[in-house]
């Protein structure tokens, strides 16, 4: 057993590959040869993980990926436990369907990061693409548990159709953030894009860095929401994210909506002091 399994990209990739086999929980039971023999896909063509990566280490649920893997999709997808650290950028669908464990992207993540995840944590130190934490195509629910923390900005449809869980965006969020949420919490420290929390049934969108409140949301009051304080205090202590104290202790304007739905969702807009 090694301290960690390290996958090092042998050469820059000419085309994207699908590597959903890269799961820390799965590596815990495999030796180097078995890991290298795991299948990856280039379009419809099957290849072996070892064709693209040098594999070092075996039989551990701690995995590190070195090299530019922004063209490698599906890393950590469906992982149930363990730790996966991607030293640079990651391709699309990183940690999609995650049910447990911790996935960390030191760079930025592509589209569909943490899509439909049900548990575990995804920590993206850079930016995230579109649909982070959202629903898989055709699925009725986005993430239903766990945490996604994006230090940078996020693209469109962040947290769309979310059912449970916590999605934190340290930078700006694109259009339609928290669209059609069923429940859960989305926190955006930067500017929130157009149509925030559109058609949400329940759930919370915390907008710190500015938001255009839709006319379908109704003002309730100005107050200090204790759950926002709890969540931000937790995030600041757990992750290396810069959360100003005034966001934690400050007052928020509460808007209830969306009017076309049960109306028990909310947008909490931070009140500049």
């Amino acid at each position, binding site marked *: 057993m090694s301290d960690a399994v390290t996958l090092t990209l042998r050469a820059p990739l000419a085309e994207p590959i699908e590597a959903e086999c890269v799961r820390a929980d799965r590596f815990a039971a495999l030796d180097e040869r078995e890991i290298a023999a795991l299948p990856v896909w280039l379009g419809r063509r099957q290849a072996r993980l070892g064709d693209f990566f040098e594999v070092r280490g075996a039989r551990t649920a701690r995995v590190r990926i070195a090299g530019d893997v922004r063209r490698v999709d599906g890393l950590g997808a469906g992982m149930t436990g363990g730790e996966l650290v991607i030293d640079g950028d990651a391709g699309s669908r990183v940690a999609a369907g995650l049910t447990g464990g911790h996935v960390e992207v030191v760079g930025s993540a592509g589209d569909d990061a943490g899509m439909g995840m049900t548990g575990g944590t995804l920590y993206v130190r850079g930016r995230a693409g579109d649909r982070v934490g959202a629903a898989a195509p055709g699925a009725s629910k986005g993430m239903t*548990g766990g*945490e996604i923390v994006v230090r940078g900005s996020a693209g469109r449809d962040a947290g769309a159709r979310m059912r*449970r*869980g*916590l999605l934190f965006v340290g930078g700006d969020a694109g259009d339609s953030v928290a669209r059609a949420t069923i429940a859960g*919490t989305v926190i955006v420290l930067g500017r929130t894009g157009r149509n925030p929390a559109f058609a949400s049934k*329940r759930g*919370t969108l915390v907008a710190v860095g500015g938001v255009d409140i839709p006319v379908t949301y109704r003002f309730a*009051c100005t*107050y*200090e*929401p*204790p*759950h926002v*304080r*709890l*969540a931000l*205090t*937790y995030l600041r202590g*757990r992750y290396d994210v810069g959360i100003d104290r005034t966001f*934690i202790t400050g007052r928020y304007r509460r808007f209830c909506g969306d009017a076309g739905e049960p109306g*028990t969702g909310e947008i909490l807009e931070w009140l500049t002091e």
Partner: protein
Amino acid sequence: MYLRDVFLEDTFAEAFPMRVARIVITAVNARWAREAALKLTGFATSVIACKCEAAIERVLDSSETPDGRPGTSVLLFAMDTESLGKRLIERVGQTVLTCPTTSCFDGLPAAERRVTPGRALRVFGDGFQASKVVAGERYWRIPVMEGEYLMQESFGVATGVGGGNFLILATDAESALASAEAAVAAIEGMPGVILPFPGGIARSGSKVGSRRYKGLAASTNDAYCPTLRPLTTSALPPEVNSVLELVLDGLDEDAIRRAMRAGIDAACRPGVRAISAGNYGGKLGPHHFYLREIMGAAREAGTPA
């Protein structure tokens, strides 16, 4: 064995297993966290009549609480898990939920056994309540006139120890009170232990049952009542005219042992003749705290004794 001219009787305190929860109350400032804690722990001196025993464990700095606000930690003991859950629902619902600015959190997150007072109290929200999951724990947001009350759904239940005690035998009431106050001051704030009686002190130590009244659960500890010296089998030395008792409940034996050591050491003051302890001959409770052993350990550990 003498400690600074105070005789340490060769006896032990007998204590019992109890179920315990730690409730962390936070508020806008320390004053309101304390106000809620004082109400929460009111009328909770003895399970005999109060159904639970509770007191403030210690004041928490904002860096020690889940939401970064000033807080107060309370320990609440009951005889079984079901009773503990009921007491939490009753007491938190009437005292913490009602208190301005407070939130309420579990202080025993590692405990596997759980009760869910937050789930029960959520219905006060009359359907407007909402839940949030943070760090894997569910919290309930209950709308109230002030704004919103936040409470953790489940609280850990540990097996603690209830009924640790020692008696201060003094020449007069003033000396007994001064000694007991010094002992309380030495124990207050120690983690994992509480003194559930008023100001930490009990003047009416009891014995099990009654010599005269059937069905009475407890009655005065006549052997330690100075006024009854010629009327009963007294346990008091001739020069003793007042006795006070400290009762200690703790998360474990070690917490009680440490607190008894600190308390007895502080209690050995002028006017105190002896330190004793209450027990039932070792037949009822599995936890035995031998006074001389505890204070001997204090000597070996280099603490004053």
